């Protein structure tokens, strides 16, 4: 006889947010995850009131250093265009700026990486300046060092998990 029991628990899903991607979700059973972030930065923004959030996984600080078509077709590769699109998308689905919980992780550096070539540092500056302009406080930042990181956002409760390969794990 067939088992007729139907689970009312939603099936949990994990969605990878690859390098140069932005994903948003309102599915409480979904976890967004950016694996192995290097010099790029993973940014999560979450509105706990309406329980929606997203994850941006960008790798370069400034789209204006590229040709306009590169930035136009790949806005999520860059801090400036990626963050602007992220804020707009959250706003469009009803999130309020004042509610947003922001977590950033990544911006790693090669050892002795000098200023001009230090993409990780520039990415951090770019995200900090954008968030400052929008008056968005960073709830938690895990930035720099020589580590690879994985960043997760649980849409159900807004928790972030940051894992540093071979090192630490933080739930924030």
């Amino acid at each position, binding site marked *: 006889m067939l088992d007729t029991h139907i689970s009312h628990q939603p099936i949990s899903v994990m969605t990878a947010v*690859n*390098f*140069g991607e932005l994903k948003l979700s309102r599915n409480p059973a979904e976890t967004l995850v950016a694996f*192995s*972030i*290097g*010099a*790029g930065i993973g940014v999560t923004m979450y509105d706990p009131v309406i329980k929606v959030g997203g994850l941006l996984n960008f*790798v*370069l600080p*400034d789209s204006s*250093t*590229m040709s306009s078509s*590169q930035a136009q077709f*790949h806005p999520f*590769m860059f801090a400036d265009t990626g963050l602007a699109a992220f804020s707009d998308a959250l706003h469009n689905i009803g999130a309020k700026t004042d509610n947003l919980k922001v977590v950033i992780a990544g911006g*790693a*550096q*090669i*050892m*002795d*990486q*000098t200023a*001009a*070539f230090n*993409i*990780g540092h520039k990415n951090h500056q770019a995200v900090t300046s954008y968030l400052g302009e929008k008056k968005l406080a960073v709830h938690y930042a895990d930035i720099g060092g*020589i*580590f*690879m990181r994985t960043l997760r956002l649980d849409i159900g409760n807004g928790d972030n998990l940051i894992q540093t*390969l*071979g*090192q630490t794990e933080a739930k924030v």
Partner: protein
Amino acid sequence: MTNVDDIISGIDTLRPIPPVAAQIMALAEDENSSMSEIADLIVHDPSLTASILKICNAAYFGLSRRVDSVRDAIVLLGLDEIIELVLLNATAENFRDEPDGYGLGEGELWQHAVLSAYAAKILAESHGFTSQKHLVFTAALLKDIGKIIMGRFVAFSYEKINILVHSRGYSFNEAEKEVIGINHEELGARVGQKWRFGDQLIYMIRHHHMTDKTARDDPETALVYLADIICMMIGFGTGVDGLAYRFYSEVLDRMKLTEKDLQNVIFDTGQRRQKLDKLLYLV
């Protein structure tokens, strides 16, 4: 300290590169070799021909008609692409396994190897080294072959290596050398010697982290080095060693690579990375 001879004897556990691929590598390294010599080598090897045709006919390449001969494949995809497929096909088997010790998942070392190879090619083409692009591609692809053997020794000594890297400012390869007595670059060069790679290819594998100052003057080795650090920054197929390698800005200065150039190469490599997953499992 582990006996270095024991580690070196681990080279015998690798699956040697098929002779025809080794010949193609040698020709690709030789500036005077002709493209038709390389094509002939492929055509005259039935098993390699079969593999290449199978790969070329996969949906990935989106060809409008079925390819039945290597000559056809060369016409449709170009000889460069075919040579790259031969090289990927010849090295895939060794790299696919999950090496212990570096904290890499299954296939991640392979992902890093292949993306580095394409990054090196992007750099070679954009910085006037087109005649050397196959050599640079091959060196970037094979640069971490030593890690396959080193992995279990790194796993055994990981705590010590970790302390040197995170408390005493060692780079990962410096720490490998200090703790184990040999690092993955030296071991990779030993593999190259055993498999009779050309001298230049061995040199590039041996010095791909540029610890030796004189290597920083060698432009082809510099391309492999840059490709590697770009993939580390992108974070593709990188393990517990993370970004724990040294950055030498003089290498970029000598290549006349500006900050904008570096960002452009990261962007182009990133684009390549998004298309790579399908290719990785074809070869």
